């Protein structure tokens, strides 16, 4: 009976440690080892993600992933050519060279006008007037954050758009 109680206490302690690690996101915490076997959704590789979002005055947003295949072409072009990304071994995340992305705003704007705007014109019936933006999100390494909650997210360039 005493052993049963002891086991129960240890088990509750185990669950609490697991819970705190999941929500505490403390990489340096002594119980982080439990967190290594986490069931959450975390990414710890440094990488950016791109969204080309059309926003009009009523905050209507169009996700560029709606373009499907076309977007992957754009995504790759923006990542590799304009921002100097190189593919890493996993092939599903990208190494980042932040320095290379600096000072290329004009180039990216031209790229958006030339490649993205025609797609919007052609495929988005609701897009009439607003701003076409390139959003960059950055997930910091070992941050233990959810992939839907980036550490930093900003608008890299934004150009006026009108059909």
């Amino acid at each position, binding site marked *: 009976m005493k052993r*049963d109680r002891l*086991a129960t206490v240890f088990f509750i302690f185990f669950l609490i440690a697991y*819970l705190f690690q999941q929500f505490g996101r403390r990489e340096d915490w002594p119980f982080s*080892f439990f967190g290594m076997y986490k069931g*959450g959704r975390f990414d710890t590789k440094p990488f950016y993600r791109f969204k080309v979002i059309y926003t009009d005055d009523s905050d209507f947003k169009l996700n560029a992933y709606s373009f499907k295949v076309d977007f992957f072409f754009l995504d790759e072009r923006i990542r590799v050519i304009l921002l100097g990304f190189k593919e890493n071994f996993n092939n599903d995340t990208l190494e980042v060279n932040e320095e290379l992305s600096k000072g290329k705003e004009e180039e990216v704007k031209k790229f958006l006008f030339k490649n993205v705007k025609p797609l919007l014109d052609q495929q988005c019936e609701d897009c009439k007037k607003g701003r076409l933006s390139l959003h960059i999100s950055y997930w910091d390494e*070992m941050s233990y954050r959810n992939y839907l909650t980036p550490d930093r997210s900003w608008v890299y360039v934004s150009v006026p758009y009108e059909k």
Partner: protein
Amino acid sequence: MKSNSLKLKTVEFCILTLGTLYVWYNFNVFPPDFFEVWKPISFYKLFSRPLSNDLLGIFKFGWIFFLVLAGLGIGGYFFRIIGAVSAIILLGHHYNFGNVYHGTHVYMGAVMILCLLPRPKSSALLISYLKYFVVFVMVLTGLQKLWYGGGFDWAFTDAFFVRLASHPYQPPVGQAVLEGPLILSQIFAGWALIVAELLAFVSLFHKNLGRVYFFIWSSFHLGVTFVFGNHFMFYSQIFVYSAFLGLEFNFLLLIKEKLESILSGRLKTIIN
């Protein structure tokens, strides 16, 4: 009472023996330059560099040998502790290179519960711990999606679609989901979030519901493979879900009976 003991033996066989062999089978699948960057976390910070291959080999042997035998009911508490500690060190080692995986966390948690907790006298209590742990992880995963993932957006917007679209490779089923209407990806995400995760506690209400959830969770992992590809390591969790099945068999006893029947048959033949 005896029935519970047999159930526990079955669960231990499924997790410690079959689960260990399965994780071992899927182990060591790392890209060539995986071990180049040492970014230690947790107690690995005590080490200035990765453990040597020789040392890892020893831990690997300790993990597989002792846990597989412990799962068969051989070796007792001593085997369990050596096996579990070796598993902790070995399986945690590759988390120190910048990537965090979550394919074996439920397996590892179950091993910790079975091997490192003070052994309760009641076998049913230990099985209950496993059930509570699985439900706890499932519900927590769902809550995390709500907490960090913008509430129910995961199920009712294009969040899952975006995640799938940004995945570098989609198997045929994943491609079909992308090409189909948005409601299809919402059903996938909603099923996983609401039924498999947030409502996981329902499995504790009745043993038959537990059995139903065994299939729900298993099909959930199979579905992830069909839609996203790979994710085979997650199947290690299915061995832990076996705690919900209420199966009763003793593997060693089965072998013994089988051998006895074969031998007695031979003897009879020889005598005749």
